[in-house]
C-alpha cells in the first residue's frame, strides 16, 4: 500500500509478491500495523494488552475511524459489529475481516447508583422483551435492515415525571438522527420502556464520554448509546441486564484485503468530480432535511455567543473596575480572578461548571456563564490597559473644566478608550465565538455538534465541516460588523 511504484521488471515481481503477502486476510495480519480503535473501549483495552505490536490510533467516533481508514492513515478499524455492518454498507471499498480476537461484550443501559428502582424496572422490561422474542425482532430489524428500518409508532405517554435519558445520537444503527428524529435500536428500546412504565422520556444529547458521568452527577437518570458493560464501569454505575451481545469486527480497505475475504464486486459508477460534489452535498445537507440540524445548531451557537459576549463584557467591565480600584483587596481579588480564568483551559472550566458546580441546571445557561466568565477575564485586562493608556491630562482637563469624575470618564476617557480597545476586543470576540464550539462536550447541540451528527450518518467529512466553517466565519463577520457600526456611533 505504501510501496513505491516499481521501476524495473525484476523489482516489480518482488514487489508484487511482497504485496500479495502483505494483504490482510485475518486479524493476525494486522500485527505491526496501525489499528483505529474507539478510545477507552473494550477493544482498545484488549488489543493493547494482547497485541502490543499493533499501534493504536484512538478516536471518539466510529465515523472518524472510518475516515481515517479511507485516508489510509490506519490499516484497520475495530468496532462493534452493529456499527461496523452499517458503516461498511455506506462506505465504498471497505471489507470486514472474518475474525476478531476481542471477546464479545454485552451492551447495557446505565443508571446512577441511586437509581436502583428504575434499573429494576428496566430489567423486568428487558426480561419481558426477551421472553416474548420481541427483542430479537427489534435487533434484527435495525441491524440487518437499518437503512429501511423505521421507529415504531407508539402511543408515547405525556403525563408524569419524565425520565431523562442521556444519549449520543451519532451512531447508526444504535442511536442516530433520521429525518430530524431520534432513531436506532437503543432509541426504540427507550421508547418502548417509556410506554412500559408509562412515563414520558426526555432525551439529553451529549458526547459519548459524558454519558456515564451524567448518570452519577444527576444530569440524566439513565444513559443508553450502545454502552458496553465492563467491570470498571460497573464500579461507579449500575448496569441493566445485557440486551445485546456485541462482537467486535475489523474493517479494512478492500484493496488491502486478501481476495479470499472480499465478497462480491462492489463497483460504484463514476460520477465525476462535479457529480460527486453534488451527490455529497445532497446527502449531507439536503437529504432528511439535514440543513435543519445545521440551522438549529446555528441558532444555539448564535444564542450562546451573543449572550456570553454581552454578559462577559458587562462582567469584564466590573472586573476592570475592581482591578483599577484603589482598594488593594478589591484589586487583588480581581487580579486573582483574572489569573485563574486565564490559566484554566476553557474546556476544563466548562466541564467543571456543568458536572461539578451546577449539576442541577440546564447546560446552555451554565455554558453561557462559563464563556462569559472566561471572556470577562480577558476583556477586563484589555479595558484596563486601554483606559490607563489614556493620558492623565485628559481626565484632569475634564475635571478642571467642571465635569464630575464620573462624567469625565463617560465623556472624555471612555470614548477614547473604546476606540483603542476595539481592534483587540474584536479579536477576542471572534475567538469567543469559535471557542463556543466545545459546548458539544456538555451536551449542548450547537453548530459543531450538528456537523458531528451529520457525519455520524453520512461518513463524509467534507460538506458538514465546510458548511460549519462557513457558518462560523459568517457569525464572526456579522458580530464584528455590528461591533464596528456601534463603535462608529460611540466615538
Amino acid at each position, binding site marked *: 500500500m505504501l510501496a513505491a511504484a516499481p521501476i524495473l521488471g525484476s523489482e516489480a515481481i518482488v514487489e508484487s509478491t511482497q504485496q500479495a503477502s502483505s494483504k490482510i486476510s485475518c486479524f493476525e495480519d494486522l500485527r505491526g500495523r496501525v489499528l483505529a480503535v474507539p478510545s477507552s473501549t473494550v477493544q482498545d483495552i484488549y488489543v493493547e494488552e494482547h497485541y502490543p505490536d499493533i499501534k493504536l490510533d484512538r478516536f471518539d467516533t466510529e465515523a472518524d475511524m472510518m475516515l481515517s481508514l479511507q485516508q489510509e492513515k490506519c490499516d484497520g478499524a475495530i468496532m462493534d459489529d452493529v456499527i461496523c455492518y452499517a458503516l461498511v454498507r455506506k462506505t465504498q471499498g471497505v471489507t470486514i475481516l472474518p475474525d476478531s480476537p476481542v471477546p464479545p461484550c454485552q451492551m447495557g443501559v446505565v443508571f446512577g447508583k441511586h437509581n436502583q428502582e428504575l434499573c429494576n424496572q428496566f430489567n423486568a422490561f428487558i426480561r419481558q422483551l426477551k421472553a416474548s422474542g420481541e427483542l430479537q425482532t427489534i435487533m434484527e430489524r435495525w441491524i440487518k435492515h437499518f437503512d429501511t428500518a423505521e421507529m415504531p409508532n407508539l402511543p408515547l405517554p405525556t403525563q408524569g415525571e419524565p425520565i431523562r435519558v442521556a444519549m449520543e445520537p451519532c451512531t447508526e444503527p444504535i442511536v442516530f438522527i433520521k429525518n430530524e428524529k431520534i432513531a436506532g435500536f437503543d432509541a426504540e428500546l427507550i421508547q418502548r420502556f417509556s410506554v412500559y412504565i408509562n412515563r414520558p422520556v426526555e432525551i439529553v444529547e451529549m458526547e459519548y464520554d459524558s454519558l456515564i458521568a451524567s448518570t452519577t452527577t444527576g444530569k440524566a437518570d439513565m444513559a443508553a448509546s450502545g454502552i458496553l458493560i465492563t467491570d470498571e464501569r460497573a464500579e461507579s454505575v449500575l448496569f441493566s441486564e445485557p440486551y445485546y451481545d456485541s462482537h467486535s469486527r475489523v474493517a479494512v480497505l478492500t484493496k488491502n484485503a486478501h481476495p479470499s475475504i472480499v465478497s462480491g464486486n462492489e463497483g460504484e459508477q463514476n460520477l465525476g468530480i462535479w457529480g460527486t460534489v453534488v451527490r455529497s452535498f445532497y446527502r449531507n445537507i439536503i437529504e432528511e432535511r439535514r440543513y435543519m440540524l445545521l440551522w438549529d445548531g446555528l441558532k444555539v451557537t448564535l444564542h450562546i455567543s451573543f449572550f456570553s459576549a454581552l454578559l462577559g463584557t458587562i462582567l469584564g467591565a466590573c472586573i476592570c473596575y475592581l482591578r483599577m480600584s484603589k482598594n488593594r483587596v478589591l484589586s487583588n481579588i480581581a487580579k486573582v480572578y483574572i489569573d485563574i480564568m486565564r490559566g484554566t483551559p476553557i474546556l476544563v472550566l466548562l466541564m467543571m461548571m456543568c458536572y461539578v458546580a451546577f449539576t442541577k441546571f440546564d447546560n446552555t445557561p451554565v455554558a453561557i456563564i462559563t464563556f462569559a466568565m472566561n471572556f470577562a477575564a480577558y476583556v477586563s485586562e484589555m479595558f484596563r490597559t486601554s483606559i490607563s493608556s489614556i493620558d492623565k491630562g485628559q481626565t484632569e482637563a475634564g*475635571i478642571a473644566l467642571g465635569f464630575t469624575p464620573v462624567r469625565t470618564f463617560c465623556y472624555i476617557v471612555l470614548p477614547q478608550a473604546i476606540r483603542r480597545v476595539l481592534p483587540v476586543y474584536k479579536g477576542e470576540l471572534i475567538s469567543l465565538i469559535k471557542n463556543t464550539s466545545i459546548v458539544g462536550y456538555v451536551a449542548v447541540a450547537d453548530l459543531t455538534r450538528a456537523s458531528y451528527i451529520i457525519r455520524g450518518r453520512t461518513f463524509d467529512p467534507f460538506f458538514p465541516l465546510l458548511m460549519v466553517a462557513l457558518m462560523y466565519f459568517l457569525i464572526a463577520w456579522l458580530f464584528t460588523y455590528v461591533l464596528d457600526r456601534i463603535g462608529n456611533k460611540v466615538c
Partner: protein
Amino acid sequence: MIQIKHLQKKFGNLEVLRDVNLNIKCGEVISIIGPSGTGKSTFLRCLNLLEQPTGGSIVIDGEEVLNGRVNVSKLRQKMGMVFQSFNLFNHLSVLENVCIGPMKLLGKSREEAESKARELLKMVGMAEKASAMPDELSGGQKQRAAIARCLSMDPEIILFDEPTSALDPTMVSEVLSVIRALARQGMTMAIVTHEMSFARDVSTRVVYMDEGIIYEIGTSEEIFEHPKRERTRVFVNRIRDFHFAFHSPDYDRFLLKSEWQAYCNKYFLTRESMRKAQLIGNALFRMMPLDKGTLDFYFRYSEHTREMSMEVLLPIGASPVNVEGNTVIHELCSKVECNHEADRVKYRLCMRHKNR
C-alpha cells in the same frame, strides 16, 4: 475674590507647600515665578482642588471651599485652567472641544454653544482650524484652542500652569499675546511662568515662590528691579555662583582650575571675562592668609545683567587685608566693599563692566 490662608500640601513626607497666604482680587493678573520644584504648579492645582490641600483655607467669594461641603465641580466651572501639556480632548475636533463644556455642563443648545465657540476661536485666531482634530495642530495652536475651551465656560478666573513651557520658542509669542489680550480685557488670572519679561509686562503683582512659601510678593518693578530678599535677587537676576573653599596654602590648584573651567563653559563666560576674573583671583589669593583656616571664595555672575562679582570670606579671626591697594584689583574692579559677617571679614569686589 480668593483668600488663601496658611495653605499646606504634603506628598507623603515631602512638604511642598508649607504656608501660603495670598489674596487675589478681581481683575488682578498674578504671575507666580520661582525655581523648579518649589510648588508653584502645586499651588495652582490646589486652588481648583485638582490637588487636595492638606491644611489651611481657601475662601472663594466668601465661601470656604476646603470643608467638603462645596460642590467642587460647580466651583471649577467658574475657574478655568490652562495646562502645560494643553490636554485638548483628543477624540473631539477643536470646535467640539470648545462646545462640550457649555453643552454638557451649562445645558446650552448645540447652536448656541457653537456660535459662542466660533466667536472664541476667532478671538484666539483659531477659527480656521475649527474642524481640525487636536493631533493636526501645532503646540501653539493647541494651547490657543485650550484657552478658547477654558473661556467657553465664562470663568471668573483662569489659572495658567506654565502655558508656554511645552512650546517651541517660535510658538511662545502667539500664546503669550492671547494671554496679554485677555489681561487687557480685565480677566482675573494667575499665571505660573518662566517667561520673566512676559511676567514683568503683564502682571499687576508678581509672586516669588521658594521653600514652599510666598517668599516675596510685589509689583513687577518691586520684584524685578528692587528685590528685597537675597533668593529673589538671585532668581530674577539669574545669578550663578561659583564656590571654592581654600583649606590650606597647598590647595588643589588643578581641582580649582578644572571646576572654574567647567563653570565658565556652563554659563558661557567670555574669554575676556575669564581672563579678568583670573587676574583678580590670582592677585587676591596671593595676599590672602591661606594658612589661618578655611577661606571661602565666591564668584557670582548674573545671566540677566551680566554683572560679575566676587566674594571672599576670610578665615575666622583673620585680620583684614589691604585689598583696595592692589593695582590689578584697583584697575579691574569698579567697587570693593569690606564688611564683617559674624566673626569673619568679607570682601565684595564688583568687576568693571566691559562696556563701561
